[in-house]
């Protein structure tokens, strides 16, 4: 196995008494797409800032593209791309002008390179469009182009598809998969489950700790041991109360117009009989699929 693109060992960052990142360790191989899932304030951004060499770790070690984050921060920054959701695009410039401007920041003046980057993200044909006229999905593509113009081997994406619908999200992710096939390594931070589902591996962060890191499928099968059932019954709250008390039921939640349960060795018929005998009407009980949200809730509680 070749040397990992990112290698993190016991990485820690304290701010006074507050431990923002608490002894996390993980490796990322070339061409992998790794998601870093956690709520705001869980330590995601602090980790990225350390990996970019912008913030000195308090403890532990990390290498990025073979460079030490403590000693070779500039080498790292020259070789990675960073797309932030809060990235400033100049609204009154065209897409081409924005990319030319940011290319210049990296010393890229080659017109062919700028044009091929626009083409890569599918913005060719929109060179002269003012960026304020772009939809959120297209702005995200422009931000990606800006992060890619210096052809980095490693790309950090911070909630790259927040606020767009599934169609635009899927189109964006098709681009990301293409980049990964060409050997670019990608680390995505997000607090959206919809977005994390697209990653090959997902690390779950909470309160500065990396609780787990694996493929979405493995996380679901290893952490959610039970069966998921979608129970359409009413009244809902009484149903929730009764199912919570049933042996083998690990969690029951209100899911809008139905209840969602995770349970072990509980038959559908047993739930139905119990609910009906308590005067609750049952429309249907269907098998559900575990989600990354279930994983997060299980790990966090």
């Amino acid at each position, binding site marked *: 196995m070749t040397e990992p693109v990112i290698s993190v060992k016991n990485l820690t960052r304290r701010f006074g008494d507050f431990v923002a990142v608490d002894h996390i360790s993980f490796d990322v191989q070339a061409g992998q*797409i790794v*998601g870093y899932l*956690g*709520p*705001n*304030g*869980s330590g995601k951004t602090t980790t990225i800032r350390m990996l970019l060499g912008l913030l000195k770790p308090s403890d532990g070690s990390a290498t990025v593209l073979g460079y030490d984050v403590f000693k070779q921060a500039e080498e790292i920054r020259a070789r990675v791309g960073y797309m932030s959701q809060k990235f400033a695009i100049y609204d009154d410039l065209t897409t081409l002008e924005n990319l030319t401007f940011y290319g210049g920041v990296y010393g890229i003046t080659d017109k062919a390179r700028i044009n091929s980057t626009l083409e890569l993200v599918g913005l060719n044909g929109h060179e002269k469009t003012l960026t304020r006229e772009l*939809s*959120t*999905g*297209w702005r995200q593509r422009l931000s990606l182009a800006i992060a890619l113009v210096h052809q980095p081997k490693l790309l950090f994406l911070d909630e790259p598809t*927040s*606020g*767009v*619908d*599934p*169609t*635009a999200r*899927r*189109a964006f*992710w*098709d681009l990301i*998969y293409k980049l990964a*096939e060409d050997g670019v390594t990608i680390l995505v931070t997000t*607090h*959206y*489950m*919809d977005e994390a*589902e*697209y*990653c*090959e*591996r*997902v690390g779950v962060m*909470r309160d500065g700790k990396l609780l787990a890191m694996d*493929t*979405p*499928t493995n996380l679901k099968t290893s952490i959610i041991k039970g069966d998921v059932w979608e129970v*359409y019954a009413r*009244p*809902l*709250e009484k149903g929730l109360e009764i199912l919570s008390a049933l042996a083998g039921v690990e969690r029951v*939640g*209100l*899911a*809008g*117009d139905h209840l969602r349960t995770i349970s072990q060795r509980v038959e559908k018929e047993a739930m139905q009989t119990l609910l009906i005998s308590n005067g609750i009407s049952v429309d249907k009980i*269907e*098998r*559900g*699929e575990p*989600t990354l*949200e279930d994983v*997060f*809730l299980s790990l*966090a*509680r």
Partner: protein
Amino acid sequence: MKPNDLTFEHSNVQTLVHAQNLHKHFGNNHAVDGVSLQVKAGEIYGLVGSDGAGKTTTMRLLVGALLPNAGEINICGYDVAKQVEMARSTIGYLSQRFSMYEDLTVLENIRFFAEIRGLSSSEWLPRSMEILEFVGLAKFIDRRAGLLSGGMKQKLGLASALVTRPRLLLLDEPTTGVDPVTRQDFWQLVVKLVANREGEGVSVIISTPYMDEASRCHRVGFMKAGKIIAEDSPSNLRTRLNNRILELRGTPLKSLKQIAIQDEDVEEAAAFGDKLHLRVKEGKSNIVIARLQKQIESQNLNLISLREIPPTLEDVFILLTEFNHD
């Protein structure tokens, strides 16, 4: 697809929101382009779409903060164009950029919102306490809002919107930026609010770009370019794709995708991390499974699993919008 082709059974359930053919444009931008909405008491309705689809504008029209260029809105029996104050008195609105006074305490913040909504001093305190109890902030009434966690701030926002006991609660992307545990708690509150007060009949309209959130609503309207392009319950929407979504796991994924998209009965193959989701033509899932298995085997690729899975709202949204990419 005909938009808004829902029929409403005229039972004794009240319809709290009647919006008919709403239009709102800003210059050439048709932010809301012919939206009609009916929301019944006891219903959680999701407006689902990307930024710029028209969700927030629709909400601002409903609350009377913006005047429509055309269309009519009736909220709890009040015509928003003519009786905006009366209509507003029935609405609680938690906007995306909810702001609170960070240097006031939790209770002082609620009091402020209660008083500007005209609640008298004898009314606001017991009611505020009841609501703070409900959202789980009763223990923190003396804490300054600036010192609350993100999840608690959000609950304070919800409490402020609830203090007037609205019959219609408008929540504009309320769980942006919060963690799943907080989000779960927040949703339990919303569902309870609707279930608890079934007699009084509260309705909730919530906007979100996220399908995991949409799936918790009783009914959703998918918005795109100012229009509601489909509207139904999440489970009914999903049945449109029943038996048509396959999950394929194996390696290398790229080669597997190549094989899948060449199959005549596969309409779409999308990568999802370590797996593929295939959308197949109606009634073809077994044939496709058998055929792909054989093909993958013959090419010596590694197949871990290939199975039919329940369709997600995301699959449905993509199906409905694939002919009008932005």
